[in-house]
């Protein structure tokens, strides 16, 4: 399942990397966004980190569960 989509994942990862590199060269943009309106965007970013990490964990749990279900199905047949 993952190997089938591996090239897509790699492309996605590289594009994130490219965006990240862009942001690195232009930190003014980041600082300006984060420091405006009393730094409220830092709070949004922190909530985003919580959400993203929990979601990534749930996805990994889902993948494991899928694999278990598949194994069980194979045994039954």
């Amino acid at each position, binding site marked *: 399942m993952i190997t089938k989509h591996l090239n897509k994942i790699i492309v996605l990862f590289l594009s994130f990397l490219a965006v990240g590199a862009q942001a690195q060269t232009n930190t003014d943009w980041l600082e300006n966004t*984060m*420091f405006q*309106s*009393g*730094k*409220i965007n*830092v*709070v949004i*970013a*922190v*909530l985003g*980190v*919580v959400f993203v*990490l*929990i979601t990534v*964990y*749930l996805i990994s*749990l889902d993948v*494991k*569960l899928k694999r*278990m279900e598949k194994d*069980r199905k194979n*045994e039954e047949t």
Partner: protein
Amino acid sequence: MWHYWWKILSAIIVLATIIFGLGTPLSPGIPAVEPDRINNGVTSLTIKGYNTRFTDNPDAIKVWITNGDATFCPYEKTVVDDTHIRVTFSVTEKIADAFFDLYVNTPREGTMYLPSALLQNGLEVSLNPDEGDDCISTVSAAADAFDFPNQPILNETIRNVFYHVPSWFAMIFILVVSLVHSVIFLNKGNPLSDISAANAAKVGLLFALIGLGTGSVWARFTWGAWWVNDPRLNGAAIAVLIYLAYFVLRSSVNDSEKAGRLAAVYNIFAFVMMVLFVLILPRLTDSLHPGAGGNPAFNQYDLDDNMRVVLYPAIIAWFGMAYWIYDLKNRMEKMKFKQIMKDDY
């Protein structure tokens, strides 16, 4: 359905802490003053307010700066709009420190204070400076309102307390769950307890990563770097490494009985080290985190009462969320284990 109640309750409380944590206004404050240095002679400054309404009663506003025991009053003061005041100071006297503190007092907002607001530039620093003018009004509090304190540098990011701190509490809670299962395993030798302990430690690691991630973002825009050499940060990183070693140890021994025993003993050691590195050592030294030499979340001087109202439910709710995630993982892994056992015999 009835046994879902604590899961739904936790989710609702987390949602409520997000709504109240973001929706409650910040108390008025002075985030910045421009320029941030004061020259020998005449200096004009623009004071920036946040959530202030300076035009309400411009004549009643008092502005003063202090340096050591000395106080200096502006000889000119103009309210530009709700969030800007222009003041002109004339400072030629000797001063005690390099930094001036700024005070703004208004009838509506009370006394707002910006420590180390201004750096002296070309002023004579003396051990025994002359006393300055005496224009200060009595320091007063703002009218009662449900709001969060407006701290210099922190500003709105003080709300992160509701999302950063509970993840560490949740980590400690779920590692206690892990510890309890390890002790049960050592007593009874049931392999399911060993699986529970490992799963709880994994969820603990997830919450440690959330704590480190949120803390890192917060630190970047308040302390100025993604990672600073703060005892609490380094302690948390060491605790994460100690728990990573637990997983390595558990999976490196082939005999599952032996692996379980070794891992359970190591888990007890890891928990003690975690408490030492996360809870005890950072309190013994100076730290950028609040609460050196105390309990920051329960100390009356470190946490505002209005923030407690949101933080404590948030901690309880994240206990529930952590246990829920652990429960899902645990049920899954136990099912897998039973399946393997059935296949073997």
